[in-house]
């Protein structure tokens, strides 16, 4: 009888110990397993960019007329056509107006009786909204639209990338031709919105 009574109390004692251990574990779990958060911003600014150049270089193109060695013969050109490549990079905002490219004679006069044309071919390589070439134009002192509708795009860099631009010089009026030493003409390119 005595043993039964003791067993009951021992069992109750053990149950209490387990209960305390259980509480201890709950407390331990609540003290651990915590989650904390912290944050900070990253801001990336992509600016609007427009940059353009000619390839393979900006060196002058030289056209040279030679008189015929035979009376009555035509005047010869050493090279009537010479090519440059127009490269550009353009980054625009969402609501930005597409860009256009103009070219004009900026400095110096085209000799009388001479015509200076420019033929812009389709772009080679590149990505994005590369725009549209207008084809052939005659260069004058007034800005001539040569490429329209340029959006975010890049043509690729170097020769054989971007827009091929062929300068085409010719004699438009023999009557107005005059002998002259070197005549320098600067061509200016402008990108506008």
């Amino acid at each position, binding site marked *: 009888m005595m043993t039964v009574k*003791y067993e009951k*109390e*021992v069992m*109750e*004692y053990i149950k*209490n*110990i387990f*209960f*305390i251990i259980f*509480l*201890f574990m*709950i*407390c*331990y779990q*609540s*003290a*651990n*397993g*915590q*989650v*904390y*958060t*912290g*944050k*900070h*911003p*990253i*801001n*990336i*600014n*992509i*600016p*609007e*960019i427009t*940059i*353009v*150049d000619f*390839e393979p270089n900006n060196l002058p193109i030289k056209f040279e007329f030679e008189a015929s060695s035979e009376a009555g013969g035509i005047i010869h050109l050493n090279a009537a056509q010479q090519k440059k490549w127009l*490269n*550009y*990079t*353009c*980054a*625009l*905002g*969402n609501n*930005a107006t597409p860009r256009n490219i103009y070219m004009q004679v900026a400095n110096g006069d085209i000799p009388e009786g001479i015509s200076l044309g420019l033929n812009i071919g389709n772009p080679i390589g*590149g*990505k*994005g909204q590369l725009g549209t070439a207008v084809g052939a134009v005659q260069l004058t002192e007034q800005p001539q639209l040569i490429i329209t509708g340029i959006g*975010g*795009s*890049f*043509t*690729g*860099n*170097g020769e054989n*990338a*971007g827009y091929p631009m062929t300068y085409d010089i010719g004699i438009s009026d023999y009557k107005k031709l005059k002998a002259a030493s070197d005549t320098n003409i600067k061509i200016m390119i402008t990108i506008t919105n």
Partner: protein
Amino acid sequence: MIEKFMIIIKWKKAVFQRSFFALIFNFYLIFSLQGQTSMSVNGNWNYTVSPVIEAGNDFSLFYTSAPDQVYLSADKNKAKGNFKWSFSIHKEDVLWDNTMRLFVKRTGNGTNTSNGNGGGLIQGGTAFQEINNTDNFFFSGKKGRVDIPVQYQIQGLSVLIPADNYSTNIVYTLREE
């Protein structure tokens, strides 16, 4: 002998029956031993993309921040216990273009705050990993550690992405294990 044991049991029983007080005592004991955990994220990254130098080119393939662009800390004011923790990371976009990809890596071990009590440990996160919009494990450690340097890298920038000020929040989550 049995009688003596039973007297002790009866005394204990009286104590155990006050389970409420035992619970309070447990909380006090645990929290006082564990101490207060803290985390911090110091710094940010504001970057204006470097202009294209050569016409015809796109932006560079990637841009990288300073090696210590941001400092992280995981600490406990009484870190004598077995303080195990891990950092996870994700981003919450404010204005973002999905072609831009962010990467992060840990560039140093920071400073151990356990003062030689058990040495501590820090592991993982030393190679660039992409930060997604869902939480991903970054690195883990034991014992308190402060001033852990973190570096970012952005890839996929292009002039084809509309020019704008893009922003995202980098969220670090410290989990105490």
